[in-house]
């Protein structure tokens, strides 16, 4: 019972793309519901990357031989695909090793460029992943800016009220850095409202969870920066991208220094290359970038709008079915802003035990823990009606999942509850 977005035939092709889905885990067909941590990898993307590495690879730019020329063309084509995917210009797209790297780069570069100074305020939310939290709070020590929070209610939800409260409390934040979607509560954030509310702030969107299943148009959102990772949208690990408005990138000091990003270097000083090369120091992850390009090709070949609707349908079903279990406590909003993943707890059973039994007895992969959002756990604890274990179980879907997968999860949870009784 796959999503209605796919014909049987289309879905059959999808399944063939992800060989691990045909694998057995502990004697059961694998039910992979850990997509929010990282998605499976596709045959098409990986085999195109293999072909690139084995038949066309060399280092890029700055060389006139044939292989270098082929590799450079592939690399720059991948950049164009990413740019088109988010409606940006090629020069505005910098390849990074992922979301975490992108945010760390921005914090340091904003400071080095004087765009974020001692005494300035950075506003983030209480639901941020550590990637968009720890760099800010730790570097605030060294650089003297302040970090303030948009507060979540005790279901872990960010409301327009809480955004307005933050606005009235925090005087003109210099930077607002916000996740597009929470990896714990599944909430898709009201980015448009945040943009409107903080017109003068530099807006950074952490797109890690959102971009795999929802079209992000940086121009329409009027976002200043966007960062994301490829591995959550079937690309390999180690590759991601940072988008920045051209005018801001021009002013921004680089984060990493080295080869390729320079214009002229003497023993005393250095001037930088043009955009986007200025931000790509050293040998790039050429194979990774090329693979991210192929990934976009693949997702677009399925129809990205179909992926989006498939996730909406599965998310709704997941939330509905989980809600029917009276021993399950669910976190996050209870409407259609809750997408692609659900965090929950079984009253009286530790999340680790839940995940372990689901894996052992049902072949279901879920994640349990604090999901790199420790401070949010203390918020959820306040709203919890059970003995909150400081962590949750999380089930997350992608386009190769089915309603049947969710049915198996539900069955599994009933069994766990009986077992630990």
């Amino acid at each position, binding site marked *: 019972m796959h999503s209605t977005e796919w014909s049987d035939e289309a879905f059959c092709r999808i399944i063939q793309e992800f060989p691990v889905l045909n694998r057995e885990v502990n004697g059961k067909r694998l039910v992979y519901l850990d997509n929010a941590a990282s998605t499976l990898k596709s045959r098409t993307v990986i085999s195109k990357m293999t072909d690139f590495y084995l038949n066309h690879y060399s280092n890029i730019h700055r060389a006139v031989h044939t292989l270098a020329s082929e590799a450079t063309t592939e690399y720059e084509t991948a950049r164009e695909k990413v740019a088109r995917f988010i409606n940006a210009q090629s020069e505005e797209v910098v390849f990074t090793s992922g979301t975490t790297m992108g945010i760390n780069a921005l914090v340091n570069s904003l400071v080095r460029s004087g765009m974020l100074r001692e005494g300035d305020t950075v506003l983030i939310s209480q639901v941020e992943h550590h990637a968009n939290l720890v760099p800010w709070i730790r570097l605030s020590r060294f650089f003297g800016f302040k970090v303030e929070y948009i507060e979540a209610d005790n279901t872990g939800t960010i409301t327009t009220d809480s955004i307005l409260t933050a606005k009235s409390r925090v005087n003109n934040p210099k930077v607002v850095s916000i996740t597009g979607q929470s990896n714990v509560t599944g909430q898709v954030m009201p980015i448009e409202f945040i943009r409107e509310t903080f017109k003068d702030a530099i807006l950074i969107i952490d797109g890690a969870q959102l971009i795999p299943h929802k079209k992000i148009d940086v121009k329409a959102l009027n976002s200043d920066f966007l960062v994301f990772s490829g591995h959550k949208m079937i690309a390999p690990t180690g590759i991601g991208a940072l988008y920045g408005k051209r005018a801001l990138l021009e002013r921004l000091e680089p984060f990493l220094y080295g080869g390729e990003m320079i214009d002229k270097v003497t023993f005393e000083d250095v001037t930088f290359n043009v955009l986007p090369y200025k931000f790509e120091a050293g040998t790039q992850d050429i194979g990774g970038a090329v693979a991210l390009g192929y990934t976009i090709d693949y997702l677009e070949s399925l129809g990205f709008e179909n992926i989006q609707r498939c996730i909406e349908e599965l998310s709704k079903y997941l939330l509905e079915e989980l809600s029917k279990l009276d021993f399950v406590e669910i976190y996050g909003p209870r409407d259609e802003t809750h997408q692609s993943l659900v965090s929950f707890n079984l009253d009286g059973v*530790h*999340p*680790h*035990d839940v995940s*372990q*039994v689901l894996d*052992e007895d049902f072949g279901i992969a879920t994640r*349990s*823990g*604090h999901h790199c959002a*420790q401070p949010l*756990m203390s918020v959820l604890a306040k709203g919890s009606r059970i*003995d909150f*274990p*400081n*962590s949750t179980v999380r089930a997350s879907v992608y386009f190769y999942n089915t309603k049947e997968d969710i049915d198996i999860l539900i069955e599994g949870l009933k069994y766990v509850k009986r*077992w*630990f009784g």
Partner: protein
Amino acid sequence: MIYSEFIMDYSKLKKFHGKIENAHRIEEGKNLSCGDEVTLYFLFDGDKISDVKFEGHGCAISQASTNAMIEQLIGKTKEEAFEILKNVENMMFGRDFDDQLLGPVTNFYDVKNYPMRVKCFLLPWKTLELALNGEGKKPLKE
């Protein structure tokens, strides 16, 4: 199957739960990767461990492990406790160990096949190690 009857039973034991008000030593441990926490309270009688109790929360493995550890420790000398600890680690890392010394703790033998759960099992033991090594200090719970 990691959840043997022994582990299920021991995970639910209540008798070692609680605080010892006049404890000679209090030690906290936590598991980075899952947020599990345990606080161990020790009473010594000369060189002997005369009583141990614990507070905290965690998964079935860590709860069962804590209960089994305490049961095994009470009445032993610190030196014997060190020996037990060493053999527990040997068991987890696939080295030779003395099953006489470990008694019912050998019921956790299979946990070594679940690398992600070894940490859960070891939480109370690592905390014991801190307690035995840090003799003299008596940190308070924050």
